[in-house]
């Protein structure tokens, strides 16, 4: 009897440890995707500005509340705009940003192939 209580206790503590670890990893991954709005070039993970610390606390709380990464990011975007995310979302306004490099590379490749053909 005693043994089973101890084993249950040990098992739950291990599980709790793992879930806390998983939550913290999730939090840190989110911190790395969120821009510090007063330092701009930095993520809130790298920044210890006051607003960055506040946003970290908020993200941790939302994780504990059971919010998904998408919901948390959605909340931040709703309040601060797309700029708060380090990776700009793919949408009409950012098509040029996302696809221009690929288009330019394609054009370059076409030019190179044509020249090679001409030489041959």
């Amino acid at each position: 009897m005693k043994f089973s209580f101890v084993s249950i206790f040990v098992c739950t503590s291990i599980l709790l440890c793992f879930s806390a670890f998983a939550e913290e990893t999730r939090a840190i991954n989110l911190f790395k995707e969120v821009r510090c709005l007063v330092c701009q070039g930095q993520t809130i993970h790298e920044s210890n500005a006051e607003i960055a610390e506040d946003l970290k606390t908020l993200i941790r709380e939302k994780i504990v509340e059971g919010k998904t990464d998408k919901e948390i990011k959605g909340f931040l975007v709703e309040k601060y705009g797309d700029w708060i995310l380090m990776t700009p979302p793919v949408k009409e306004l950012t098509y040029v940003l996302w696809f221009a490099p690929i288009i330019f590379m394609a054009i370059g490749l076409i030019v190179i192939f044509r020249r090679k053909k001409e030489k041959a």
Partner: protein
Amino acid sequence: MRLIKFLPLIIIVLLCIFFFFSLNNDTTKLSSPLVGKDVPKFSVDRLFNSGKMTNEDLISDRPVILNIWSSWCIPCRAEHDVLMVLSELYDVDIYGLNYKDNETEAKNFIEGLGNPFEKIGVDTSGRSAINLGVYGVPETFIIQNGIIIYKHIGPIHMNELDEKILPLIKDL
């Protein structure tokens, strides 16, 4: 075919023009996605009185100004004179949200410099400010019928009051 030879040069020149104009873009002043939307819900304690200040206080058919300030914020001191002028000379209700401040210092600030506010709410944790999309003090919202019309980041200077804020309020 000749044009193609110059294409890289043309692209570079266009990019230079684009980057040159981007340089002058002040990225420290971000437009808020909340403009055009309802004021987010909040409810905070008041600085001088008991009771709460909520988003419902800001709903009026007259223009309402919500100013986020703090006693430790130096630009807020400069801005305070402008708010005093605004509250004394113009028919507009100004509400204050005291951001991450010390109660005594906040009270001293208002007692020393005057009180342009109808109500002052206290946001010690900064959570209501995050809800409003605030990332620094001072920030100012112009609200009508509970909808955010305009957001000003940084202190309002006298010339900005004349050129931006007053025309906006008069139009409402």
